[in-house]
């Protein structure tokens, strides 16, 4: 296989800071984000030849976005596999750039999940706005009142049953995210919470309490990915794509053990391509739709053994200011649990990892010390049914 390591770099980023934008269109948020991300890179409209986007609300999202932006991309990809879509996009952009098809790709996303009143987690089939159930799998699932939170809750329930994981351990994840959110002026929720607050809060779908679930916001962003030649001429130090892997996990015709998630399949090629191990990762952006998502993902990425995730996330290990010698700072922007979660969140993983690798928060508590290698893992869909997993390992010179 062609060696893709260092085959492309993230050279421009922009996070649209809105958490509530009832007066904007999703395309406008994407347009504003693309313009600002290109300015961040020091590139312009004429430089862009690849367009990558995902949407659960914009039909034919790649085509309609190209129209809105009035651009004629040579390469279009609107792979939509839920929240992790953007790690897939990075993987595909790397491949297209390394093959010489394009030099500069833009990945962008936005959603008005909050101002649109979308019940992302608890809306049942209505969450997708479909007029009727598909013959399969909907017709074998939605009759039973599936919710997104319910599908994750069932995985949490079995995790507790098999491994003795506790609600307090899950709450540790939410506490760490809130701690990080307190360092992020743009985060939705910034007041500290305790494990006790969380385990005593309202149950949504047992064993998951309200603070075990991500927030619902509007928002968006853009990432500019470029060839090594272009990257070296950009404004910031390049954030190299060192390794990528992607996977889909599903019910396996009724026979898969869904306690093992897509991260189990996607991380091995990513680590192999990057030539690093878990010990080399200075910080990680782990999709935190729910607290259990982080526990399961850390296990299946190989940061700890299966079943030990509850213990691993305890004692403040995920917090950037932890005193633990083997700490692993996670989601230093506050994550989906406290900062923002506009329907799909994978793009924000790439944004914060890039900020950390640029040492953008130097001399502030949010900066991961000497950050050289970061891992992003996006999960889309639902752990308990079918889902995607995209792993990306990023590094700086």
């Amino acid at each position, binding site marked *: 296989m062609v060696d893709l390591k260092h085959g492309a770099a993230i050279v421009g980023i922009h996070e649209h800071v809105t958490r509530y934008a009832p007066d904007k269109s999703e395309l406008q948020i994407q347009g504003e984000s693309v313009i600002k991300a290109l300015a961040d890179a020091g590139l312009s409209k004429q430089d862009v030849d690849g367009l990558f986007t995902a949407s659960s609300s914009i039909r034919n999202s790649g085509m309609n976005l190209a129209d809105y932006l009035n651009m004629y991309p040579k390469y279009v990809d609107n792979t939509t596999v839920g929240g992790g879509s953007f790690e897939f996009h990075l993987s595909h952009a790397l491949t297209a750039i390394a093959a010489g098809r394009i030099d500069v790709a833009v990945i962008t996303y936005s959603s008005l999940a909050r101002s649109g009143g979308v019940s992302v987690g608890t809306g049942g089939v209505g969450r997708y706005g479909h007029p009727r159930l598909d013959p399969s799998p909907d017709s074998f699932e939605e009759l039973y009142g*599936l919710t997104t939170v319910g599908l994750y809750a*069932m995985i949490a329930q079995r995790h507790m049953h098999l491994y003795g994981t506790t609600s307090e351990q899950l709450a540790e994840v939410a506490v760490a995210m809130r701690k990080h959110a307190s360092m992020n002026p743009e985060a939705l929720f910034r007041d500290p919470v305790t494990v006790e607050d969380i385990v005593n809060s309202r149950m949504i779908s*047992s064993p998951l309490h309200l603070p075990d679930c991500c927030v619902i916001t509007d928002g968006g962003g853009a990432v500019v990915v470029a060839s090594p030649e272009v990257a070296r001429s950009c404004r910031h130090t390049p954030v190299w794509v060192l390794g990528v892997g992607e996977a889909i996990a599903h019910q396996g015709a009724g026979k898969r053990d869904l306690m093992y998630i897509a991260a189990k399949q996607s991380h091995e090629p990513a680590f192999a391509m990057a030539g690093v191990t878990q010990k080399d990762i200075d910080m990680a952006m782990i999709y935190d739709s729910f607290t259990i998502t982080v526990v399961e993902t850390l296990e299946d990425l190989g940061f700890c053994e299966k079943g030990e995730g509850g213990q691993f996330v305890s004692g403040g290990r995920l917090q950037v200011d932890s005193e633990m010698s083997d700490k692993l700072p996670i989601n230093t922007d506050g994550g989906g649990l406290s900062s923002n979660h506009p329907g799909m969140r994978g793009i924000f993983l790439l944004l914060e990892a890039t900020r950390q690798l640029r040492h953008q928060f130097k001399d502030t508590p949010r900066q991961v010390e000497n950050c050289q290698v970061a891992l992003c893992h996006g999960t889309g869909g639902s752990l308990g049914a079918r889902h995607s997993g995209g792993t990306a390992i990023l590094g700086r010179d």
Partner: protein
Amino acid sequence: MTTRQEWNKPLPTVVGETRPYWESCRRGELLIQRCEKCGEYQFYPRGICANCWSDDSIRWVQASGKGTVWTYTVTYQNRTPGFAEDVPYVLAVVELEEGVKMFTNIVDCNPREVTIGMPVEVTFVRANDQITVPYFRPVGE
């Protein structure tokens, strides 16, 4: 078999490859599929064997209707009509004796008494003239 007044939950869309399943439910029987070529059971029903990718070897067989709770959650919030007024209800994955897992609700019991590994059996609720939905309840209730 029980009939529920004024069914306002979603109803399945029935097509050729799934029709025998829904027709069997209407008769109060649970049919699943087995591949004559590779011997594997599969769920949900489909027109091909998802294991060996044979397109002419799927047969319908009667399931025992017994299984165990593989996992579950007590749902306290769902805004969909039909479920909003049903909370708290038990959403579950049941592993049938034949080895395939399916989504269901555990009914006819106190939601707090459901546990992983609990033996359950199929029970049917008639939604309308065409559709009857299989659920599971604790064995012996």
